[in-house]
């Protein structure tokens, strides 16, 4: 039976150091929820509070309506997958998978059946009687997954499960994890610092920094309409450029580099006004023109170019001195040489604008909520 997780006003302290000051979030039944953030942001700490390996200094953690603050980890109904797999090296694959069942008074035959079922699910049934040291990292991680799922937990917790695997295997494994989670339909909390992995795998993501959730929402919304400057820079690459917002007949206009002025239709009506803003422009949101091809735009000089097959990256310096990175689809024999003058135009529909003072988003369409998602998953 899968559950809804509600965390209200959670506090975590190590001695005098407060790691999580006040965190609330609700995770829906059957949802694949990811805690994403740089190292030290408190994501693993939060996961371990849910698991019961870290003490809870304040707030309440509930699975459905049951508070679990003081329940032993083994009695919370969790299945956990660890960063280093934590496969028992002294037990065979089968014994590893059966380990948790032994504490559930299950008859031997049924135990075997259950273990077989889950070993098959993760495709390790061929290695049932091997010792873990004979298996690869990917196989060990799948055993860990089977071991966590076989006890039919209410919640599956995964702590950076793919970070010890090589890049190719990581991509493979995240598909497998996503598929199995979907098949089993279990509420899952997943921790990672890899934003691409988080996007690929999650129903919803909470982007954390310093123990605070900065943005909680669907992957595409977090990427396209980040709630603040931190989220914009942490998810994907972006260029931050200072601009000046002004109002013309109720319509927002932003001037960049003194001369390039363009209207914005995506600013929240209540946010329109005269103020300094920060524009977050992703490298692919620029369009490059050779000098003379267009009059309106940001003048820049190419400093360096990197050819990466389908795309070419340019590093350019604006007139204001700010450095920007640009990604363009590669064309035949048309790499712009360093030193060339170019003009950049901006796709204003996609660009995000933040208040320079508060670094919060001024855009419409930001969906940031720690409450349960409106539509069922």
């Amino acid at each position, binding site marked *: 039976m899968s559950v809804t997780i509600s965390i209200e006003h959670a506090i975590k302290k190590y001695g005098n150091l407060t790691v999580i000051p006040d965190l609330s979030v609700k995770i829906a039944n059957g949802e694949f929820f990811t805690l994403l953030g740089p190292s030290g942001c408190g994501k693993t700490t939060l996961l371990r509070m849910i*698991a019961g390996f*870290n003490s809870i200094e304040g707030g309440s953690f509930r699975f459905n309506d049951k508070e679990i603050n003081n329940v032993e980890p083994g009695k919370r109904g969790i299945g956990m997958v660890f960063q280093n797999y*934590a496969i028992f090296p*002294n037990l065979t694959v089968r014994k590893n998978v059966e380990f948790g069942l032994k*504490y559930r008074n299950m008859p031997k035959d049924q135990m075997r059946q259950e273990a077989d079922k889950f070993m098959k699910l993760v495709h390790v049934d061929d290695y049932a009687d091997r010792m873990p040291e004979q298996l690869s990292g990917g196989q060990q991680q799948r055993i860990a997954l089977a071991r966590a799922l076989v006890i039919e937990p209410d919640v599956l*917790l995964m702590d950076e499960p793919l970070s010890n695997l090589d890049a190719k295997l990581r991509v493979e494994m995240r598909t497998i994890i996503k598929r199995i989670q979907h098949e089993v339909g279990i509420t899952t909390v997943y921790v990672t610092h890899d934003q691409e992995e988080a996007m690929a795998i999650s129903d919803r993501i909470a982007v954390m920094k310093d123990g605070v959730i900065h943005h909680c929402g669907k992957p595409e919304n977090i990427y396209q309409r980040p709630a603040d400057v931190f989220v914009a820079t942490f998810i994907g690459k972006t260029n931050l450029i200072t601009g000046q917002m002004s109002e013309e007949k109720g319509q927002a206009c932003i001037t960049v580099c003194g001369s390039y002025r363009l209207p914005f239709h995506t600013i929240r009506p209540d946010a329109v006004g005269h103020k300094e803003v920060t524009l977050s422009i992703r490298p692919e949101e620029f369009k490059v023109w050779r000098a003379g091809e267009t009059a309106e735009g940001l003048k820049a000089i190419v400093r360096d170019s990197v050819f990466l097959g389908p795309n070419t990256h340019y590093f350019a310096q604006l007139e204001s001195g700010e450095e920007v990175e640009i990604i363009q689809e590669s064309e035949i024999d048309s790499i712009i040489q360093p030193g060339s003058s170019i003009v950049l135009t901006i796709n204003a529909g996609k660009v995000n604008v933040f208040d320079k003072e508060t670094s919060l988003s001024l855009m419409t369409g930001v969906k940031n909520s720690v409450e349960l998602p409106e539509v069922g998953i």
Partner: protein
Amino acid sequence: MSTQKARFDIWSVVSLCLLALFLFFLVYPIGRLLIEAVYTDGIFSLDAFQEFFSKSYYYVSIFNSVKIALVVTVFSLLIGIPFSYFYSFYRLKGRKVLLILCLLCTMSAPFIGAYAWILLLGNSGLITKFIASLGLPTVSIYGFGGIVFVQVLKLFPLIVIYMNGAFRDIDNSLLEAAESMGCKGLDRFQRVTMALTMPTILAGALLVFMRSFADFGTPALIGRGYSTFPVLIYNQFLGENGSNYHFAAATSVIAVVVTAVIFIIQKVATSHFKFTINSLHPIDPKKPQGVGGFLMHGFCYVLVGVAMLPQLYIVNMSFRNYNNTILQPGYSLKNYQKAMQKLLTRSISNTLLISVITLAIIVVIAVLIAYLVVRRSNVLNHTIDTISMLPYIMPGAVIGISLILAFSRKPLAFTGTIGIMVIALAIRRMPFTSRSATAAMMKIPISIEEAALSLGAPRLSAFVKITVPMMGSGIISGAVLSFVSIITEMSSGVILYNNRTITLTLSTYAAIVNGTYGVAAVFATITMALTVLCLIVYLHFTDLDNVRM
């Protein structure tokens, strides 16, 4: 990590039980020792200390002990470091055999070497007679020189074992980097190799000092008036006018102060060398060549040969015909028959019984302490850990006296039982076993245990089913070493034993003192056979390159 609001679970109970055990069997005896030292007839008085420092016979014995221990430490380093260097940096012929023999030397009972050297270099020893027959001046094994000689041969392998570990941890790139900057040869050995191994050198030196300082058997047998403090304590205890506990206690306190000072000096010195090496490219031993290679082989083989000589000679002597101390021609099993009459079976069964019980106790306690220190780091558990380390600076004789003082009166009358021998040995070995268990514990990632807990295993069952098996080989090899030291233990036992609780080493000592040399050789041979057996078991569980003491 500061965990929980001190959540009370099964491990809190374990902590409290351990604390109670240590308070009762270690802290309480030490307390009794201190009280005995400063009270005369119920009145506080420092008269024993006054007397100690007023008679040269007394204070010289401490001075002698320190002098011997220091000289032994220096010589052990001078011999052990080159030996280990040759072993680690060159592919010597038969290097495994060399190391195994080294291990055997240091594992053998402490005074067997001394006894054998009496047979070889004593007044009527084999070599003495041979030299005399050539008309050359003979050397004496008795006194200061002899004690140092015997102890160095017994203790230098400890340095070798420590240094092998340190040399293996050196990253070859560091040496290559030094060479690329023009630092070569002896200069490099001094500035890079030695500097990198300094913490280990200091650790090894401390261990050798403590062993030498506390050794009772060697000075007792070949001291011949060169008084050392363990012998002094023993004599106070077995004085002609009855036991002088008061004075023995005061002497013990002084001895512990000395070892504590040495311990602190060593810790301070070590704190200057705090660094960790991440060894990605271990040293690749070279093939020794030319004259240098010949000399290296010569050095190592002669050294091990001399160190092994007494062991082999003892075995030989156990089959020789003796009339008390007088050697008779011919070989037979007469000594073994005599030994049978002299409590041989009782000694063996006592030895095995005591060792097995002690081992079981210390392994369980050491594993629990390791767990508490590594996983439940709090004030209480660190206190337990610190208390368990106290015996490291307490010579065996001091532990013996403390236990007698604490447990010879009703209702705690354990003296004269197997029980008190077990307690003494468990206390003696605790620091070493708990260190090796802690090291093994540190290597186990905490997530393994959390995995077990998250799957519903109760705490104790996660520990027994997962953690302990993973510590497995580390615990076993540590335990075998402890087993050997328990079998060959002497200095605390000699104060605590009686006819019923006599062990192999004590029987050997008694036989030597009684002048039945052949019988002594039998006891020594059997002790050695047990040691060899343990060494074989040990090597079964431990890779020769990972030997740690």
